[in-house]
């Protein structure tokens, strides 16, 4: 008998706690608060952490150097994170919470195209600018969103560098096999690669996808093996790169080269594969070999950035770190140029933005996409990630064709 009212009350009480607006985390007036729903748990935890490092690294720098100047007042910056659990269907709620409960000034993008898309929709509705560095799927930018900007080169161009590099080798790659995970980003990458290859007289001998939840891709690989291509590329995420690379060795698939989108550039790749990671190509939005002279206000060259970053996080800065930092930079310069924190003014400033940074040029086309920055190609050469393409930035000669398995 005692419990019945208790239960009723309990239910009501809980309903109330959720109902009653929580204490809004609106910070004091001399702080600019950014919000980001990000993958802290779930399948994309690693990628989420790389993104967060990129953001945090920028935050520390800016706050250490007097913050962002708006007019004649300097603001400290703060970033509020929520965990989207690597699920596309949770980020919407988190974005609303950041905007309505925590009253963040601006949004920094989550990791991944699916989540970025959802959040972009909300940013649009709430007229809160979002700059994202980790959602390359072009569909995000074909919706006519006015408040979403992406600092990275679009998905379809991810593998162009690798392909271009391959056709310039001796012997030149004449055929390519494309494997891809079934998620939106990977599919756009794969289509882009296929289109580029055909346009440049490369024969696409194999082009097939597998479910992005696959735990074994051996059948895809043995199918691909029959076509013995000069170049094998995979469009996917870190997990895919590891699966495919292991699979290729398992089945002793030989090709001139092996190219991946996300993967080789993250420390995990070499760490888990050891010698078998050697001679693999990774498409990258950025590498610490790029030679840009950025504007003042932040580390001006990739090299300075990389050095400071490694000191801070004890691992080499990969392009996820850099592009995330770049997203923050876009805001920093836009806010300074706008001379105001008004979302619309900042939005317009972003649209007009045209600056060179350690990461490359930050400039957005009418859709809000940064199509002005080239991709680079890295290769793992005996355990070390070196940039090999475009030729102008090459730190080392391309190793081509790759030596047989076991001899790497």
């Amino acid at each position: 008998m005692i419990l019945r009212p208790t239960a009723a009350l309990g239910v009501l009480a809980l309903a109330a706690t959720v109902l009653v607006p929580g204490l809004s985390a609106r910070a004091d007036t001399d702080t600019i608060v950014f919000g980001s729903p990000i993958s802290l748990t779930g399948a994309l935890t690693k990628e989420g952490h790389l993104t967060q490092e990129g953001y945090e690294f920028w935050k520390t720098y800016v706050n250490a150097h007097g913050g962002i100047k708006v007019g004649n007042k300097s603001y400290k910056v703060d970033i509020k994170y929520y965990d989207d659990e690597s699920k596309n269907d949770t980020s919407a709620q988190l974005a609303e919470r950041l905007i309505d409960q925590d009253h963040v000034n601006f949004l920094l993008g989550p990791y991944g195209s699916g989540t970025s898309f959802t959040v972009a929709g909300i940013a649009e509705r709430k007229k809160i600018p979002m700059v994202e560095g980790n959602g390359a799927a072009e569909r995000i930018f074909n919706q006519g969103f006015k408040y979403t900007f992406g600092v990275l080169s679009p998905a379809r161009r991810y593998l162009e560098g690798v392909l271009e590099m391959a056709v310039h080798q001796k012997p030149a790659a004449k055929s390519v096999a494309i494997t891809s995970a079934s998620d939106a980003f990977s599919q756009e990458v794969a289509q882009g690669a296929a289109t580029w290859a055909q346009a440049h007289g490369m024969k696409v001998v194999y082009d097939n996808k597998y479910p992005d939840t696959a735990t074994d891709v051996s059948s895809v690989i043995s199918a691909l093996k029959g076509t013995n291509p000069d170049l094998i590329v995979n469009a996917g995420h870190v997990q895919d790169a590891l699966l495919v690379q292991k699979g290729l060795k398992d089945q002793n698939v030989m090709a001139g080269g092996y190219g991946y989108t996300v993967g080789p550039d993250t420390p995990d790749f070499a760490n888990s594969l050891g010698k078998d990671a050697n001679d693999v190509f990774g498409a990258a939005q950025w590498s610490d070999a790029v030679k840009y002279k950025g504007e003042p206000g932040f580390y001006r060259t990739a090299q300075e950035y990389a050095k400071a970053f490694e000191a801070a996080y004890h691992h080499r800065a990969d392009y996820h770190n850099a592009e995330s930092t770049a997203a923050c930079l876009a805001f920093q310069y836009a806010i300074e140029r706008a001379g105001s924190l008004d979302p619309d003014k900042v939005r317009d400033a972003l649209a007009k933005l045209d600056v060179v940074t350690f990461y490359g040029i930050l400039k957005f086309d009418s859709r809000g996409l940064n199509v002005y920055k080239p991709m680079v190609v890295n290769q793992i050469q005996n355990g070390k990630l070196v940039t090999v393409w475009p030729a102008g930035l090459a730190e080392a000669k391309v190793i081509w064709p790759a030596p047989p398995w076991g001899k790497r």
Partner: protein
Amino acid sequence: MDGILAGGVLAIVAIGFSLVWGIMNIINLAHGAFVMLGAYVTYELYAVYHVDPFLSLPVSFVVLFAIGYAVQRWIINWVVRAPILTTFLLTFGLSLLIVNVALIIWTGDRRGIETAYSGTNFTLLGVTVPWVKLFTLVAALVITGALQLWLTRSKTGRAIRATAMDIGAAQLSGVRVARIYAIVFGLGAGLAGVAGTLIALSSSINPNMGDPFLISAFAVCVLGGLGSVQGALIGGLVYGVIQAVATSVQFTVGGQLISGSGLSDAVAFIVLLLVLIFRPTGIMGRAVA
């Protein structure tokens, strides 16, 4: 061929899952988490003490058995007689718990094990066979055989089967059900651990690696027939083959090229459905009482 080799792992994962479900009537959603733990046990032994993964097989079995035994004895046992959905919810909570503890301990980094033999392979009749996967398949066969023998011959094994058939009768004849349950659950976890070790060799390790295997375990153990050890083995192989075959298929519908590999799960489940329509209790399943 790839299918059969891939099926080996699925089989080992499914056997444990199927045992627990078939004998204890518990759908163990934490099974995937146990697979993950098995992988990390192997990884730690390899990274810290440079123990060869194959040598760590028994270790991860024992460790996971212990974990499973404890979990059943002190947590699940409180509601083990409850309706299947209650334990379903419980194990759902447990898996969230385990995976996220793992995330705190090992972070989301993806790790891998590179040994002298990982990736080495031989060619047989034009088919390239990786040693590791072949071994996995053999392991699956051995485990099935041994388990089957143990269940039919050993005293404990008989007690387990008795319990599965009729708890009340078993108890009357002096079987300590709580203990039997703990053993079965431990066994399930132990096998998950073994699977984890083998997966660690051919794939990468991270706290969420277990989830994808759970779904296939579901399909496999029902395909083979609940609680049937050979069933799970056959189911695993069949499932693997179906997916492999699906991958090689391509067809066009309304001008759109549809590749079977994008549909491998769908195909696998549709086949499963057909099997169930003609054999409502799976390939090795007994008639429903």
